[in-house]
């Protein structure tokens, strides 16, 4: 026989509970549907709880003068199957509480909605993922003087692998456990320049150049030009003949240099300074030696005047002084070319006249360039010309 519960009803807006003041029936009584069973009192009034169906009072679980919350079972009625069916009380009750089911992305109740591409983070697709920096993260990074490049290597735990502020703070505090030395302002500005330069596609080509003519020239020349200066002058002459390889690509135009000002790298303390020889195409090699040496000295002492640096169209770097035979320097961000020269070495050279290998002094000339402006062919031709010019130093 079905047991139908007698439930404490909601007897008014915002009523939470009611007090039992009288039982109008007792266990064993036969009752009809809608008959008053129990009198209860709320803050507002006294009312009766009525029977959900006809049957026999099986049990009354509530106590007189006690308060029970709305929905509490106060007792049970034993009803016949037919009675229960007639009143629809035999079907399993749908559980109201499960309507707490929440569908993802439906928080505001909108039905169809464009699903965000990134779980939980409704940002536009192109801002999603590892490259997405939230405003808070950006603000924090600005505080610490960091840029996006500093985050490379930081694992992101946020949606689609983005670096959250928590990830960032963990990274910073992790770093703080390591030995740290201050980076000089020179270091920081070189870092910035290299990062900016690297946004371009850089390629490298190289060829050996025979230095014997230069060394022979040096024995008699006064003053004595160094190999790097010689390369610089040769580059100047070559670029004066064809300025295009030193041009800058801006949109769909190549902007040609207006004067052949060439810089050369000087190692100074924690970085590199680049003094400039202005109009290097218009001055002879022998006239450049003194100014060059002076600039080197000033650079080493960090006493270069302002107009002695900047606004050059190419750079020469003599990495051979470090014992390197080969290197791939990175051009300055505002330049397309950097010409490099490696250490001079004795190398065997095939002399087809003599039909044998002969020893020569040779160094590698390298050209690192912005591949958007020139290709291997043009780079190679430029190097060829420089090499040619360097083998006739008396004409430079």
């Amino acid at each position, binding site marked *: 026989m079905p047991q139908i519960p007698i439930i404490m009803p*909601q007897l008014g*807006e*915002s*009523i*939470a*509970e009611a007090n039992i003041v009288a039982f109008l029936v007792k266990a064993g009584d036969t009752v009809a549907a809608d008959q008053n069973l129990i009198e209860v009192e709320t*803050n*507002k009034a006294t009312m009766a709880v009525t029977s959900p169906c006809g049957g026999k009072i099986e049990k009354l679980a509530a106590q007189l003068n006690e308060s029970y919350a709305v929905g509490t079972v106060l007792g049970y009625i034993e009803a016949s199957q037919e009675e229960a069916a007639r009143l629809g009380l035999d079907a399993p009750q*749908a559980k*109201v*509480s499960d*309507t*707490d*089911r*929440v569908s*993802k992305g439906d*928080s*505001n*109740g*909108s039905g169809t909605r464009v699903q965000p591409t*990134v*779980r*939980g*983070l*409704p*940002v536009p697709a192109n801002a999603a993922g590892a490259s997405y920096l*939230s*405003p*808070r*993260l*950006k*603000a924090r990074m600005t505080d610490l003087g960091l840029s996006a490049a500093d985050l490379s290597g930081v694992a992101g735990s*946020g*949606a689609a692998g983005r670096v*959250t*502020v928590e990830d960032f703070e963990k990274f910073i505090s992790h770093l703080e456990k390591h030995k740290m030395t201050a980076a000089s302002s020179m270091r920081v500005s070189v870092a910035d320049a290299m990062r900016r330069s690297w946004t371009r596609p850089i390629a490298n080509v190289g060829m050996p150049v025979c230095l014997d003519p230069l060394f022979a020239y040096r024995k008699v020349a006064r003053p004595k030009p160094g190999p790097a200066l010689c390369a610089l002058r040769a580059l100047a002459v070559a670029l004066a003949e064809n300025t295009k390889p030193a041009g800058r690509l801006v949109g769909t135009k190549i902007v040609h240099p207006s004067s052949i000002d060439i810089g050369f790298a000087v190692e100074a303390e924690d970085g590199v300074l680049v003094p400039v020889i202005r109009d290097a195409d218009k001055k002879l090699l022998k006239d450049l030696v003194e100014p060059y040496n002076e600039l080197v000295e000033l650079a080493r002492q960090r006493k270069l005047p302002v107009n002695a640096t900047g606004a050059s169209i190419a750079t020469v770097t003599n990495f051979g002084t470090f014992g390197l035979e080969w290197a791939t320097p990175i051009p300055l961000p505002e330049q397309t070319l950097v010409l490099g020269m490696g250490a001079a070495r004795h190398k065997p050279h095939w002399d087809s006249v003599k039909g044998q290998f002969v020893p020569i002094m040779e160094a590698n000339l390298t050209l690192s360039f912005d591949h958007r402006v020139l290709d291997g062919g043009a780079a190679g031709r430029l190097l060829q010309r420089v090499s040619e010019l360097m083998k006739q130093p008396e004409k430079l």
Partner: protein
Amino acid sequence: MSLTYLEAIREAQAQALREDPRVFIYGQDVGAFGGAFKATKNLAQEFPGRVLDSPISEDAMVGMAVGAAIEGMRPIIEMQFADFSTVGFNQIVNQAATLFWRTKIPCPITVRLPFGGTSGSGPFHSQCIEAIYAHYPGLIVLTPATVEDAYAMLLEAVALDDPVIFCEHKFLYYHLKAEKLPAEALPIGRARIAREGRDLTIVTYSAMVHEALEASKELSTEGWEIEVVDLRSVKPLDTDTIMASVARTGKLLCVGEAWPWGGVTAEIISRVTSEGFGLLDAPPQRLNAKDTPVPYHPNLWAAHRPTARSVAAAARDLLRS
């Protein structure tokens, strides 16, 4: 002594009547009957001639209050349900709210609105319309979430020289209890940190504060600590407290029982985004009732408004982003 939110409101009115002879209460059924929710039970007997029954005329009730205020009194108007205040809307927003700005005469009326949903109340006994009143300049709109605030803020409201829309949540009337009344409280205009946290800020008000606290408990077991800000007053909005909380956590979820369009949650997000953009580690989110009238059936009602479960789910989405 334990008292309910409703009893606290009654006690505040009794105290106001006791201390200030300019105060009187006017509304439907508030006299001998004590009010539809018994908010003025016994007050007519205790203060004869000062707790008066009105006809069903919300327009005339508010108009009359404005006239009495001009004459120097401090009327408290009880609307039987917030949903019916719209019949008196014109007098509230065009008469009461403009009087000071137009004439320099302040309008010290307090309009009490039983608002918010309870299961089975249906579309016209459940509305949350605080945003509509907040939209009009010249009104103060309050939404106490605790028994203590229901008491203290009503007292302060009656003492203010400006028109106050006092939104009392019907669900909290008997469901919320406290041990005693506070001796002092935060002033109107200041929000309260209901729960300190670290990972996410929930800004909310009235009954939703309790849903948010419930959700925070659940999330705490998952290792997240949620900060819950109880606005207490919707207008003025305590942007400083909200901003400070978002500065701590970086993530914002606004929860409101009202409808989404142009609601309190929209206003908060607008302010945080424009003034505290750099504080946000994720886009600010909000959770509101569905954009339909409030349904009657308990099953539908339970799914219509935010609950502790849906608040937790929304918070989780934001926490994992």
